[in-house]
Every structure is written in structure tokens, then in C-alpha cells.
């Protein structure tokens, strides 16, 4: 009897969520960032939070919970109540790569998490040192073919998006290169500048200034379209690597079980923020472009990204246990 009433009570507790979804949000919303403050994910989270706050007249709090490559924050949100009050500023690295990379994930990414609204995408850039003999991607690949297993590429970490971007290059061009992982992008870029490492595929914003100042040479961008910040740099496809199209993305994510009406409301609000003129300008300044999708499209995008990065992780052989 007690058990039955408990079940009924639980059912009642669940019911009102759907009914009152139109009122969402009736209390402060928290957006959790899986990386430290000041990083790109944090910048997007605070920008979106500011817009939501204006639209909803409700506090939207940003909290940074870095750790375990972003799994701490993601796990926290995946296990939070699916009411739309706890959201995640997820990224391709923390949410599409990690579920394929980590042997023990704190949650089931494909089932428990979803993208509610995409926010932005950034192009990555293939850079070499200023004294490198390679003037183009073709030169670089020719070097790699002539000296199999000698050409080195740096990344921000084992199994990072940047590492996998290198894996994709080696795979598509069918060459063998040596991966040199660093802890984060900064020390890796120093060794590329000094010519100790042959190349790196790095986040656009981290290299644009040095490319313009001639301290790095940009050979290609990883997206199918050229980047606004580097209009003279060809895409990988134009540079002779057919089928190469990779970008890093940022999105508002949450537990899959958030009621559809709440998802719609969050999605509409985010898309309204993305449509603002100043958004495009702000994003362009850090080398990103707004990425706008509906709820269903966002969910499908997440599933396909999980598979896409999963394949690359498999090819790379990288794993974290």
C-alpha cells in the first residue's frame, strides 16, 4: 500500500512538469561549463546566459566545473533532474569525443544526453612553423610520404579534437605521422613556432594573431568553407584532401528527458540570441560562427556527431580508461 502510494506520488510529481512547461522558467536556471573560466566554452555560456536572462527575466547562472576532460560537468548534468533548470554548455570534445574515448563514462551519452540548441562552430587551422619547408598541405604530405613515421604533429592532448583532426588528415591522405601530445594548446604552439614539431591542427582563435604576424604559417582550415578570419587560407578539400570537413562545436545540452515544450522554449530563445547582429560580430571576434538549428535537428546532429567522432577515435586507437 505504501509502495503504491509512493508510486502514485512519484507520478503526480512528474505530471506538473509537462503542464507548466509554458511557464518555464519559474526559478533560476544554471548552465554548467565543463572547462575553466575564461575559455571559449565559458565565453559562449556567459553570452547565452545574458541573452536568456533578458528574454526570461529570470536569473541564469553560469558555473564552471572543469575536470576529467569535461566528464565531471557532463555527468552532473546527465544525472540532474530533467526539468530544464540544469543545462550544460557542451562541446564536440567533451560530449561527442569523450563518450567514445573513455572506457568508464559516468553516463550513457547517446541515451541520457541531448543537444537542445546548437550555439556556435569554430574552424581549426593546420599551422606549421615560419621556417618550415612546407608551403602547402601537398608539400607537407609529400614530406610525410617520403619519410614515413618521421613527420610529427602536436595536439592539446591524447584523444582531443585537435589530435583526432590530425588522425583524420593522416587517414584521408594515407600517410603515417607521429602524434606528440601536450597538456593544452599553448606549450604545443611554442614548439611548432620554434620548428621542433612539424605541424599542428589548432583552434582558429589561438593561432590567427600569430599567423597574421608571420610567427606561424597557416596551410589550410578544416571546414568545408573558408574561415572569415583567414580568407586567404584554403580549405582542406581545396588543398587536396578530399572529404575533409571537421569543426569544433558548442551547444546548450541537457538530459534527454527534458519535456519537449521546455526544450522548444530554450531552443527558440537561443536561436533568437543567435539571430542578433551583435552575436555574429562577437562570435567572429573569437573565430566562431553562430550555428542555429531546431530542437529535432539539434538532437539528430548530436547523434550523428557521436558516430562521426566515434569513428575517428577508433581509427586513432586513443583511449582513456
Amino acid at each position, binding site marked *: 500500500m505504501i509502495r503504491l502510494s509512493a508510486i502514485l506520488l512519484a507520478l503526480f510529481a512528474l505530471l506538473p512538469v509537462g503542464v507548466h512547461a509554458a511557464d518555464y522558467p519559474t526559478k533560476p536556471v544554471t548552465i554548467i561549463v565543463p572547462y575553466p573560466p575564461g575559455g*571559449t566554452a565559458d*565565453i559562449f555560456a556567459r553570452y547565452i546566459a545574458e541573452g536568456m536572462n533578458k528574454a526570461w527575466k529570470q536569473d541564469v547562472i553560469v558555473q564552471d566545473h572543469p575536470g576529467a576532460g569535461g566528464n565531471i560537468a557532463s555527468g552532473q548534468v546527465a544525472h540532474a533532474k530533467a526539468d530544464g533548470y540544469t543545462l550544460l554548455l557542451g562541446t564536440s570534445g567533451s560530449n561527442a569525443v569523450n563518450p567514445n574515448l573513455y572506457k568508464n563514462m559516468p553516463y550513457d551519452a547517446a541515451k541520457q544526453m541531448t543537444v537542445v540548441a546548437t550555439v556556435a562552430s569554430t574552424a581549426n587551422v593546420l599551422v606549421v612553423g615560419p621556417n618550415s619547408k612546407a608551403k602547402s598541405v601537398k608539400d607537407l604530405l609529400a614530406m610525410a610520404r617520403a619519410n614515413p613515421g618521421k613527420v610529427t604533429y602536436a595536439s592539446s592532448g591524447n584523444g582531443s579534437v585537435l589530435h583526432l583532426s590530425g588522425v583524420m588528415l593522416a587517414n584521408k591522405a594515407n600517410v603515417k605521422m607521429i602524434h606528440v601530445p*601536450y597538456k593544452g594548446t599553448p606549450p604545443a604552439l611554442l614548439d611548432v613556432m620554434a620548428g621542433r614539431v612539424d605541424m599542428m591542427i589548432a583552434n582558429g582563435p589561438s593561432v590567427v594573431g600569430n599567423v597574421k604576424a608571420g610567427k606561424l604559417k597557416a596551410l589550410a582550415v578544416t571546414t568545408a568553407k573558408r574561415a572569415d578570419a583567414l580568407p586567404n587560407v584554403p580549405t582542406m578539400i581545396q588543398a587536396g584532401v578530399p572529404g575533409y570537413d571537421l569543426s569544433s562545436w558548442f551547444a546548450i545540452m541537457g538530459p534527454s528527458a527534458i519535456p519537449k515544450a521546455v526544450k522548444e522554449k530554450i531552443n527558440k530563445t537561443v536561436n533568437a540570441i543567435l539571430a542578433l547582429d551583435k552575436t555574429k560580430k562577437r562570435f567572429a571576434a573569437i573565430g566562431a560562427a553562430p550555428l542555429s538549428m531546431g530542437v529535432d535537428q539539434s538532437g539528430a546532429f548530436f547523434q550523428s556527431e557521436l558516430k562521426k567522432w566515434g569513428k575517428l577515435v577508433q581509427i586513432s586507437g*586513443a583511449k582513456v580508461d
Partner: protein
Amino acid sequence: MELIHHLMLGFSVATHPVNIAYCLLGVTLGTFIGVLPGIGPLSGVAMLLPVTYVLPPTAAIIMLAGIFYGAQYGGSITSILVNIPGDASAAVTCIDGHAMAVRGRAGAALSMSKIASFAGGCFATLMIMLLGPVLTDVALQFGPAEYFSLMVVGLVTAVTLAHGSQLRGLAMVILGLMLGFVGTDVQTGTLRFTFGFEKLSDGVNLVALAIGLFGFSHIILNMEALVSRKIEMPKIIGILPTLADLKACVKPILRGMGVGSLLGVLPGGGAVLSSFTAYTVEKRLAADPSRFGHGAIEGVAAPEAANNAASQTSFIPLLTLGIPPNPVIALIGGALTIQGVIPGPEIISEQPHLFWGIVASMWIGNLMLLVLNLPLVGLWIRLLRVPRGILFPAIILFSCIGVYSVDNSAFDVGVAVFFGILGYAFLKFDCEPGPLLLGFVLGPMMEQNLRRAMLLSHGDPTVFLTQPISLALLLVAGGLVAVMVSSVLRNGHQQKLESEMSN
């Protein structure tokens, strides 16, 4: 001429009333963040970062920079007075600073630490102006092989940090290295010694480790004394350093400034490494090294000059290459990015008012800190008269807030408690935590750079000997080991002789 022009531009920006106000706010906040144990510049800057979003870029960076170097001024205060470092880079100041306080010379130690910080800050500002680009090249010269050899030198000198038994010092260094193993293997992604704790996959948190070992452990020890009523209030002899003190500290401060300025530019260097290195350099060079650990004022002056110099020169790679050499600078770089200013080589040419404004503000900020801090020395000393029953719970509270706020992680507070209990055991066995902390900081960098150097040389170990900088560093390390071994042998021989004679 150009420099004078730039300086005038810089000072015109930095002396703008709004920027002066934010500079003052930054250094004042920095001092307090430094004083509060556990809340170091990293958590301080992280907490205040969102506030800067509404400020103009120059004011925002001037304030955040002020917090960073202001914290170096404040960090030594609790080190000296209660043997608990305000932040990790002031841990080494505990050794001689607190020993001075026990002898009633807290005032002299505090004043000297401020003077040394000021000298270090001014020197570093000068270095940024005159040698920014040159120091950038130095950073570029340091590849994995050079780093590895630098870490070898660091490890060899780490043993000298201990003022008691060198064998115990060595054991503590090795324990520190082993603690550095905890976390994810950068090369293979294998988890090491995490015992199923997801939070340990990034390694043991440095702030939690430092607060536990240096802070909590001493509080437990003091409470023991409190229960047995053995605690004594040290008498205070004079607030200002004597002329002899100042004379003794000139060279140590100069050396500390040099060490700090250089290490600050290197990625992973920063304030902690530079203060420890400056201390060991002084101990090595001292005519009578046995004074160290018993209140040698050079042991306060050199590291304080070094950590402040390092915190300022670490801006160089950010402003000239867009590359942050340590986490605090990475946060400040993030603040710039949020403002729409991408840190990189274009800053100096395209935003001269920003670059020179920040540099000039550092000078003004250091002056403010000196003026602010010297008169406060008398006030800080009164902290010693606060009943321990009030002071210690307050320190524990702030430490917990500080440790928690680094990553918003309650687990790290638990880590600090663990190391507090472990640190208490160490103190009981006369094992000093200094060498452990240095081993913990150096170990992971050493390992990663060793493996990276081997990858880049395609498995050829001679790379450490064929690179000139690396070779020179290894020779220094070898020389230091030879000196140490010979002195140990000589002492051993002497003891043997003495024991034979007495027979």
C-alpha cells in the same frame, strides 16, 4: 626615444583616474586574496573574472593583473606570522620567515618581504619594457629537451630545501614525484593511481595539497600545543629591518629578481617554481647554509623578489605570442578574449595603449602595494594576538573556501584534509613538506618533457647532450651532485675519524 614615447603613452593610460581606481582595487583585492590562506591568485582571478565583462578592456586587465601580483605581496604575511602560506608560491617563505617570527622578528621579515616584492616587481616591469621580445625568444629556445634538463637541476636542488637531514629531504622529494604520477598519462591516456576517483584523473590539486601539507597540518600541531598550554606568544623586536638586514639582502634580492624574471617567462614556470628556486640558490651560495631554516632573512627576501618578478614577466608570452605560461595568465588571456582583444603578437602594434598601459600600471600598482603594505605591517603583527581559538577556525574556513573555489569541487576539500593529516604525521617525524611540494610540481613536467623529447628525437637519447642549453643544464646538475656527495663523504669520514679518536 621610442621607448620614452611608449612610456608616456603608457603612463597617460595608467594614470587615467578610472584605471588608477581599478589598479588600486586590483592590488587591494590581491593583497587580501594573498593573505587569505587557500585563496590564491588562481581562484581570486577566476572568481572576479565575470565582473570584468562589463569593464573596458584596459581597466579589466589592469585590475586582474593587480590581483595577480598583489597576491604575491599578501601571500607571505600568514607564512611569516603563523607558518601557513597564503598561497602556494609563499610556501617557501614559511621556512625562514616563520623562524624569524618565532625569534620576535616578524616585523622585519614582513617589511623585508614587501621591499623585496617591490624590487622584484619594478625589475620585472623594466624587463617587460626593455627585453620583452628577447625574453620571448628565450621561451622559444626551451624545447622538451631543455625543459627536462632544467627539471633535473630543479630536482637536485630540491633536496637542499630541507634544513634537517638530507636523506629525509630526498625521501620527501621522491614522495612528491610519486604523488605527481597520479592522474592521466598524457601519452597513452591510462589512468594512474586514481583508485576510481574521477576527480583524481587530472591529478592531485596543487592548492589542496599545499593547504593540507602547510596549513592544516600546522593547525593540528598548534592545537596540540594549545591543549598542553605550551604555546608562547613571541615577543616583537622592531618592525623595520635593520641596516645590516638590508645590506645582507641586496644581492639575494638581485638574484631572486633574475631567477624569477627568467622562470616566469617559461611555460609551467611561474611563481611557485621561481620562489623555491630562488631559495635554493641562496642556500647554495650562502657562506653559512646552516643559518637557513633558522631565520635567515635572505631566505625571505630572495623568494619574495622572485615570485613577484615571475608573476609579472609571465605576462610577456601572453602579450607577445598569445601564449599563457600558467593558469592564472590563461584566465587573464580569457578575459582579454571576452573583451574582443585576442592576445597575440598584434597587441603591441595594434593596441599600444593597452600594452603600454598595462606595463605602466604594474609600476604604479607596485608602488601602491608598497605604500599600502608597509604601514600595515604593524596591523598584521597584531594578528598574532588574536586568540588561536578564533584565528584557526577562521583560517580553516577560508582555506576550505579557497580550495573549493579552484574547480568548484568538494572533493578537493577532502584532498586537503587528507594531506593535512599526512602533513601532521610528517611534522611528527621531522620530515619537511617543502621538498615534497617541489617534487610534486617538477615531476609531471619532467616526465612529460622527457617522453616528448624522446618522441621528437625518434628515440635518440643523445638529444639531451647535443642541445647546448640542455647540456649546460645537465652539467650544472652533475656539478651540484658531485658537491653534495663529496660533502656527505667528507662529513662521514670526519665523523668516523672523530669516533676513532674518541676510542
